[in-house]
């Protein structure tokens, strides 16, 4: 199989040797000019300790680089991946901008562990926010190196030189010029970015900030975009994995005789891993259905109804993440006090592509292609499973059929590695849809308690917020509240602070904008409750309780686009508003809903989202992300909830687990505002976080019924209306 079948993602030299020293590394990637960059990245993500430990394998003092090749083409090598959110387009834009080359001459190599320096993974809207500035810096540095080379070659003082369109020319005699290809010819120059070169000012930007079509679109409409399950190696086998009926179930009896009667089927039992392999995936699946397995089920009494009482009891000691003033003083100032509890349910990532990996273990070496947001995590998982050195594992990232935080663990790659080692053949593991639901690291269920108070004039005077199991992100207040405290109890996943993961009946983890969906639902619902009690329009109430000009501006921008006119809720109009600050991206969402009271059904008719992410690198991509987030967010707002009993997951396919559909679609309008003075922040997550609250607030405005639990199913809406 051609390993470079996917040149936007995987380019040349993909078969290169592993375990590279710096010198070998440079040898492998060929001649030209190299700029190495290091950037700090917030590991607000699970298992940071493990990730750090895994790091020293490739050259360790940088974590991305770019090359100007002897053909003048520019290539960026990064361990980030493309999962649909558009980094494959926005990163080259940033590079082209600072390096003064046409966008068409920029290539990007993503997630190849032999070619790309170590990277923790693609999550948390970090690609643009953290990596972007470092990449721009590297490009700016490369431009300066090229100028130095040109000064020598053209014998022109450097301050007379200017870069444009992939060439350096003399400003006084533009015909005196050298192309980047000419300058890179026969060179092997290595530079390390130590100080921040001057980046272009926002006014100077020409490529960034311009809408660009997706670079991967053509492949995706012709079927040529290859995902992990589309890859074929000679002699490969397809595997299906036996799934227990419940988490914690213990296998007590196994009968594989019927399965093994299927011609060509091979059953492998390797400890807890039981798999059927076949040269056809569907035959492996058929044989799997013939396996008879008896289990002892765990003694578990939790279900999707009693889980919240359990979480309240199980919550560990809290950690104060924000505070100011004095809550007792604040309580004395309150004319009206509020004490509310909000609940949020477990939700599944439910990517359309299930976890898939193709691994070929040959002796002490392995090659792996996996649907993963963390290629270097795949490398470690495969190395451990096959009992070989991580240096000898080459991971190549194909296209990924959606991630949203769900493809950060790489269990399927470890399974494929074990089976490949056992059989001596390449093995492709594809999780079935039921496997995918069962093994998912769900967004944690959460309990959110807010005590707050307002003065006679509608000023918020205190805010006492307790977050149980949602996590910290977006829990901090941005309203102007003199007396406040936010305490986080129980983290999600294995994140910092330890938490109590055993409180959950199954694995939980990062789900698009972790913690923020729950925290924003609670905060923005509470704000609305207070506004209604104060007899004020919810938009005016927010503006009055803010002293943050940037946030006020984004609320006004949304109101203008929406055509918001002040009214006290419930106005009967079915209008809602919610605002948020997600990792530096400010946004306000407004929605209009229609509620069928008899059926308890909600149709979201219109959504306006105004967003300020500093500068939108690719406004077209940012708009697409807003639309995507709003559409996806309708699911956790209205229907998505993992049902379970004991440790058995009841939702195993899309018949009971309802994703948003075309018929749910509101009219979506996006407004992008720039704030050139602030750092550029990400856009793959923010607009999803307001969807719970904006719909809840709109339902209240329509009906006077307040929903305290997500998703807002017909049953819950009907109960709230009573």
């Amino acid at each position, binding site marked *: 199989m051609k390993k470079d079948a996917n040149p936007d993602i995987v380019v040349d030299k993909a078969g290169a040797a592993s375990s590279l020293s710096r010198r070998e590394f440079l040898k492998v990637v060929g001649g030209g000019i190299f700029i190495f960059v290091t950037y700090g990245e917030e590991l607000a993500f699970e298992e940071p300790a493990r990730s750090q430990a895994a790091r020293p394998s490739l050259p360790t003092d940088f974590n991305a680089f770019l090359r100007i090749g002897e053909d003048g083409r520019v290539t960026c090598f990064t361990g980030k991946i493309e*999962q*649909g*959110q*558009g980094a494959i387009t926005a990163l080259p834009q940033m590079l082209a901008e600072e390096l003064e080359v046409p966008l068409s001459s920029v290539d990007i190599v993503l997630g190849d562990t032999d070619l790309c320096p170590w990277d923790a993974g693609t999550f948390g809207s970090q690609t643009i926010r953290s990596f972007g500035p470092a990449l721009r810096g590297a490009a700016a540095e490369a431009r300066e190196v090229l100028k130095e080379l040109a000064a020598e070659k053209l014998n022109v003082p450097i301050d007379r030189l200017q870069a444009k369109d992939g060439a350096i020319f003399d400003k006084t005699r533009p015909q005196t010029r050298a192309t980047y290809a000419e300058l890179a010819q026969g060179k092997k120059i290595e530079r390390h970015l130590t100080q921040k070169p001057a980046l272009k000012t926002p006014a100077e930007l020409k490529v960034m900030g311009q809408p660009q*079509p*997706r670079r991967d*679109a*053509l*492949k*995706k*409409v*012709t*079927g*040529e*975009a*290859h*995902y992990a*399950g*589309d890859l*074929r190696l000679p002699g490969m086998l*397809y595997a299906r994995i036996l799934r227990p009926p419940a988490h914690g179930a213990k296998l007590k009896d196994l009968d594989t005789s019927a399965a093994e009667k299927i011609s060509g089927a091979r059953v492998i039992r390797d400890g807890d891993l039981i798999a059927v392999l076949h*040269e*056809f*995936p*569907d*035959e492996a*699946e058929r044989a799997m259905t013939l396996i008879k397995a008896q289990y002892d089920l765990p003694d578990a009494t939790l279900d999707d109804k009693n889980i919240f009482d359990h979480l309240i009891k199980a919550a560990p000691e809290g950690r104060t993440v924000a505070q100011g003033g004095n809550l007792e003083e604040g309580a004395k100032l309150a004319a009206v006090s509020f004490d509310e509890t909000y609940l949020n349910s477990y939700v599944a990532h*439910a*990517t*359309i*592509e*299930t976890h898939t990996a193709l691994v070929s273990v040959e002796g002490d070496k392995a090659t792996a292609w996996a649907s993963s947001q963390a290629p270097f995590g795949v490398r470690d998982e495969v190395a451990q499973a096959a009992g070989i050195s991580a240096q000898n594992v080459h991971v190549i990232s194909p*296209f*990924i*059929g*959606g*991630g*949203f935080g769900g493809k950060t663990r790489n269990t399927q790659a470890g399974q494929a590695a074990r089976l490949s080692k056992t059989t001596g053949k390449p093995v492709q593991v*594809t999780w*079935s*849809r039921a496997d995918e639901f069962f093994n998912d690291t769900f967004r944690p269920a959460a309990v959110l308690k807010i005590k707050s108070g307002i003065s006679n004039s509608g000023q918020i005077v205190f805010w006492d917020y307790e977050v149980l199991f949602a996590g910290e992100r977006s829990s901090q207040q941005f309203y102007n509240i003199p007396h406040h405290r936010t305490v986080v109890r129980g983290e999600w996943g294995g994140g910092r602070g330890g938490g109590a993961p055993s409180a959950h009946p199954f694995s939980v983890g990062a789900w698009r904008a972790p913690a923020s969906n729950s925290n924003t639902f609670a905060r923005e619902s509470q704000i609305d409750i207070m506004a209604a009690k104060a007899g004020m329009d919810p938009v005016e109430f927010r503006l009055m309780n803010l002293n943050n000009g940037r946030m006020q501006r984004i609320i006004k921008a949304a109101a203008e686009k929406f055509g918001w006119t002040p009214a006290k809720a419930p106005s009967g109009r079915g209008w809602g508003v919610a605002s948020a600050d997600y990792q530096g991206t400010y946004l306000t969402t407004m929605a209009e809903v229609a509620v069928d009271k008899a059926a308890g059904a909600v149709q979201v008719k219109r959504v306006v989202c105004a967003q300020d992410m500093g500068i939108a690198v690719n406004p*077209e*991509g940012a708009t*697409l992300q807003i*639309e*995507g*987030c*709003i*559409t*996806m967010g309708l699911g956790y707002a209205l229907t998505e909830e993992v049902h379970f009993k004991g440790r058995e997951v009841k939702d195993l*396919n*899309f*018949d009971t687990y309802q*994703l*948003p*559909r*075309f*018929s749910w*679609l509101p009219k*979506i309008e996006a407004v992008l505002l720039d704030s050139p003075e602030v750092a550029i922040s990400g856009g793959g997550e923010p607009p999803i976080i307001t969807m719970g609250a904006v719909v809840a607030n709109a339902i209240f405005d329509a009906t006077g019924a307040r929903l305290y639990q997500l998703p807002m199913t017909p049953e819950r809406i009907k109960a709230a209306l009573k």
Partner: protein
Amino acid sequence: MKETIQFRLNGKPTKLAVDSDRMLLWVLRTDLSLTGAKYSCGEGFCGACTVIVNREAVRSCQTPVKTIKGKDIITIEGLAKDGVLHPLQQAFVKHDAMQCGFCTSGMILTAYALLLKNPRPTLKQIIDGMDDNLCRCGSHTRVLQAIQTAAEGMKGAVKR
């Protein structure tokens, strides 16, 4: 039961010795190396495996190959003609009507069958026709725009 099955695949006569109870999806993806149709839910709920059989959009994960004998199959790989994208493919590119792209083949082929039956659909008819195709990234708005653009561009004539 293993038998020889003949059908037209993307315009070409095709003959295949295969266990005819197997599902078309897997025969396409493995025996015929056409991986544009995707496995996602395996039970016909999502539409990622959609292909065209005699002008109808079908869920290939639920279609035994014995049912396609003598029929005309079109997969996403066969939609472009002589290197020219079909108007639907062009419109999907133009409107950025995908993110991760895993549902895209099924979306385009479902829309293709829809336009064969109803070349000038209303927005409501497009929504109804597409409602059982799932997309997790939330590209729905763009998909609808792309189908409308393609329908307008084709002026009522759906071409291969």
